[in-house]
């Protein structure tokens, strides 16, 4: 079973700290030393705000991840109890973005060593003249796997609205709920009458 981060909308105050922390955690450079215009602000979770509720939404690391099952070249795999996008091999086909029922995948510019990655072959005239096109890849929550410290969003949330759920916790919670509901029923007595 995979791990994932889950938000409690009742606790979320919509402060976007998690988004900022996500960007910092995934930025190779020190964000605060960069020019504002150069900052690639691509958080891997999005705080959704409606009239009634705010909460961040992010990848649920589905067991049968639809994104992975539509990826044409195997760039999305199950790794260390998470669904992982290999951005080095992603061809930017956007199918995973369409497939994800949570809207947890977005397309972003790929950076390497603080620089936008440019393609060797593909040329574009988007900037007026023909130039090597920047690489655009699928991006989503990776549970801050590389840091080894667990998801940064969970750590920074001022209201503890985010929880990191690891395999086994769901089973434990299901077992707890089963026992609790059986406890409630057991005092309920005979069902005669039905």
């Amino acid at each position, binding site marked *: *079973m995979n791990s*994932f981060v*889950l938000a409690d909308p009742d606790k979320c105050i919509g402060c976007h700290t998690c988004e900022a922390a996500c960007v910092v955690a995934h930025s190779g450079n020190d964000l605060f030393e960069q020019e504002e215009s150069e900052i690639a602000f691509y958080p891997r979770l999005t705080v959704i705000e409606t009239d009634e509720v705010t909460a961040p939404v992010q990848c*649920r690391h*589905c*067991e*049968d*991840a*639809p994104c*992975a*099952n*539509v*990826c044409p070249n*195997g760039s*999305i*795999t*199950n*790794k260390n109890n998470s*669904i992982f996008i290999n951005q080095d091999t992603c061809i930017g086909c956007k199918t995973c973005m369409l497939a994800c*029922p*949570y809207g947890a995948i977005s397309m972003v510019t790929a950076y390497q060593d603080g620089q936008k990655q440019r393609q060797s072959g593909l040329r574009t005239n988007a900037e007026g003249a023909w130039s090597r096109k920047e690489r655009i890849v699928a991006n989503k929550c990776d549970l801050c796997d590389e840091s080894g410290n667990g998801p940064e969003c969970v750590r920074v949330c001022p209201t503890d609205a985010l929880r990191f*759920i690891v395999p086994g916790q*769901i089973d434990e*919670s*299901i*077992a*707890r*709920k*089963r*026992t609790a*509901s*059986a*406890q409630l*029923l*057991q*005092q*309920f*007595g*005979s*069902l*005669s*009458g*039905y």
Partner: protein
Amino acid sequence: MKKERPNSFVIAEAGKCIGCKACELACFTVHNQDNGVAASVGTVTIPVLPRLYVIQTDSFTMPLQCRHCENAPCAGVCPVQAIRQEDGAILIDEDRCIGCKACAVACPFGAVSLYKSYGNGQEMKQPYLKEQQNGRLERKARVIAYKCDLCRNIESGGNSASGEMVSAGAVNHYGSLTENGGEPFPACVSVCPEQALTLVSPSLGESRPRTAAGLGSLRSLRL
């Protein structure tokens, strides 16, 4: 327009249950004819994955399963609408399920479990999703949400083995009607040796008949 009626559900009496797990076994049996499960234990080639769970505590034992909630939280959180109400039962469309676990987290009873999916007695594999296993990237097993379907998806017939099974055990029982109308008996109900399980089929706007015994239980609520 057809009048809406609350969903039926199966519920157990702790006082009667002896903890034998016959209900779990029966549930698994009738749901796995496509996996080659016929009448005898020897035909089982996959793990026993029931859709109800016998809970044992120090003081009592009873099975627990989906209550087919009218405003089912599991269905409310399903991102792919794989959980729907169909003919008065909350059912999971296993083909649509993406194993996101939201329903399992949402259910307050713990009635939804995620297990590997099986077909023809074999683990079902993902179409493309791969996972690092034994140092190699291999196709990952499909994992889906399981819960009680009131034995709605059980088909009779099929191969000779399951046909035999259904005609021997299931149809005799599924074919018979409950007192309050028209619904087939789920396997757990028909197999329980202590009649500890009941299929409850309520009507809209009506409550359970009040009995002296019910009033008696009020006494235990006094301060």
